[in-house]
C-alpha cells in the first residue's frame, strides 16, 4: 500500500438546498488512480466498495401546524419532495432531523399527523429515510408515539464507509441526551478508529447557540467530549429553522432550514424568539429553493443546491485497518 493511498480517503461535501441540504460524499484522492489499491482491498475485504454518494437532510416539517407564520401547511414539505425527486442524481438516503409533526395532546390527531408525514415522505424516491424526533414529536409523551411509528429514537448505521449516528435530545422533555444514551454512544463508537468518518444527526444543537431561545443541549458538552476522540465528525441538526454553520474543535455543525417557517439570525435579535413573518408574496422565502449544481458546475435542468460547496469533512483519513473496522457488519 502506497503512503499516498492513505491520504484524504473520504471527503464529504454538502450544499444547501434551501428547503433541505444535500450532501455528497466522495473519495478525495489527490490524483487519478491514487487510492485505487486501497479501494480494491476494501472491496475484497468487505464486499462493499467505498463510493461516492449523496444524501439529503430535511427538517422541521411540523405536519399539522396551523398558524400565522405559515398558513400553507405542508406545501413546502411537498415541494421539497418533488424537488428531491427531480434531482439529476438521486440521493442514497434522506435524513430527517426532527419535528416531523406538530404536537397535540389529542393522541388520535397526533397519530393522523404522523401518518400524514409518512404519506408525504414516502413519495420521496430514495431507498432509505432515517429520522430523529423533535420535541414536537416526542416531548409530551417521552417519545412513545414516535417510537411506534419510527422505531428507536437513537441508533446508528453504516453507509458506504460513513458511520451515521442518530441522537435523541428531545424525548426527555428537557433539551438533553441523558446518561443512558451517552453510555450507548461510547459503546457504539468504541469499535471505530480515530479517523472514521462519522455523521451525527440530531434535532437540537449540541452546543449553546442561543440558550434563551432553547437552542442548546444541556449535556451537549458530554456528547462532544465523546466525539472529540474522532477526527472526522460532522453534526447535522434542525430545530432552529435556519441555516447555521459552526465549528468546535475539529467538529463541524450544520443546521438545516425548516419546511414550515423561519426564525431570524439569533445574533441580531434581543429578547424572546419570534418567527419571521409570513410573506404572502414570497411564501417560500427562507424556505426557498436555490439553483443546484454539483461541485460548483451547473447542470442543465437541475433545480437546487447552491454553488458553494460546504466542506464538512476534509481531514485526512488514515489507515486501512480503520476502514476495515468501519465497514464491517456491526452485528458480527
Amino acid at each position: 500500500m502506497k503512503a499516498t493511498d492513505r491520504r484524504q480517503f473520504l471527503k464529504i461535501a454538502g450544499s444547501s438546498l434551501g428547503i433541505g441540504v444535500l450532501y455528497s460524499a466522495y473519495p478525495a484522492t489527490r490524483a487519478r488512480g491514487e487510492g485505487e489499491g486501497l479501494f480494491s482491498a476494501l472491496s475484497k475485504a468487505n464486499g462493499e466498495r467505498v463510493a461516492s454518494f449523496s444524501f439529503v437532510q430535511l427538517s422541521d416539517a411540523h405536519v399539522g401546524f396551523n398558524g400565522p407564520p405559515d398558513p400553507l401547511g405542508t406545501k413546502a414539505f411537498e415541494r421539497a419532495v418533488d424537488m428531491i425527486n427531480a434531482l439529476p442524481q438521486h440521493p442514497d438516503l434522506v435524513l430527517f432531523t426532527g419535528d416531523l409533526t406538530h404536537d397535540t395532546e389529542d393522541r388520535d390527531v397526533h397519530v393522523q399527523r404522523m401518518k400524514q408525514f409518512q404519506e408525504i415522505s414516502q413519495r420521496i424516491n430514495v431507498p432509505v429515510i432515517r429520522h430523529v424526533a423533535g420535541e414536537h414529536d416526542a416531548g409530551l409523551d417521552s417519545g412513545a408515539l414516535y417510537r411506534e411509528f419510527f422505531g428507536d429514537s437513537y441508533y446508528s448505521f453504516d453507509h458506504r464507509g460513513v458511520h451515521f449516528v442518530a441522537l435523541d435530545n428531545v424525548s426527555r422533555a428537557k433539551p438533553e441526551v441523558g446518561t443512558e444514551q451517552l453510555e450507548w454512544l461510547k459503546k457504539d463508537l468504541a469499535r471505530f478508529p480515530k479517523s472514521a468518518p462519522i455523521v451525527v444527526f440530531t434535532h437540537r444543537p449540541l452546543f449553546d447557540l442561543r440558550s434563551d431561545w432553547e437552542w442548546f443541549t444541556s449535556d451537549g458538552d458530554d456528547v462532544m467530549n465523546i466525539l472529540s476522540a474522532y477526527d472526522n465528525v460532522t453534526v447535522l441538526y434542525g430545530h432552529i429553522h435556519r441555516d447555521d454553520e459552526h465549528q468546535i474543535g475539529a467538529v463541524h455543525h450544520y443546521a438545516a432550514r425548516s419546511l414550515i417557517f423561519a426564525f431570524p439570525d439569533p445574533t441580531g435579535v434581543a429578547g424572546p424568539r419570534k418567527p419571521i413573518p409570513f410573506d404572502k408574496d414570497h411564501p417560500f422565502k427562507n424556505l426557498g429553493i436555490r439553483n443546484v449544481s454539483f461541485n460548483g458546475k451547473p447542470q442543465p435542468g437541475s433545480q437546487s443546491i447552491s454553488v458553494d460547496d460546504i466542506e464538512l469533512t476534509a481531514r485526512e483519513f488514515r489507515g486501512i485497518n480503520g476502514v476495515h473496522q468501519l465497514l464491517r457488519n456491526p452485528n458480527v
Partner: protein
Amino acid sequence: MFRVKLFTPALLTIWCFSSLTMLTGTSRVQADDVPVVEIAAKRFAFSPDKITLKKGQTVKIRLHSEDVTHGFFLRPLKLDEQIPAGQTTEVTVTPQVAGTFTTICDHFCGANHGNMNMTIVVQ
C-alpha cells in the same frame, strides 16, 4: 396557595416579600432572612413575567407549577430547575452579573412552549 403581588423595582419587591411574609404569617419566615420571590408557572406563561433582583444579593426563588411539569432555565445565572406538575420547588441564587435576561421553560409543556418565558433584570 399564598400569592404575593410583585412590585418593581426588585429591591422593593424583595422588601415587600420579606415584610408580608412576616406580617401575614401565611408563608414561612425565612430563618436566614433571605428574601423570597414567588413565581407561578402555568401553560404558557410565568407570573409575574418580570422580576428585578440586585446584583450580589441572595434571594430565594419559589417556583410553583399550576398545571404540568415546567422548567426554569437561565444560563447566565446558572438556573436550571424542574417544577413538577402541581408542586413547588425552591432555588437560591446570588446574581453576579447585571443585565436583562430571558428565562425560559425548558421542559416541553405543549404547543406554545417555545413562547413560555419571563424576564429577570439584575441591577
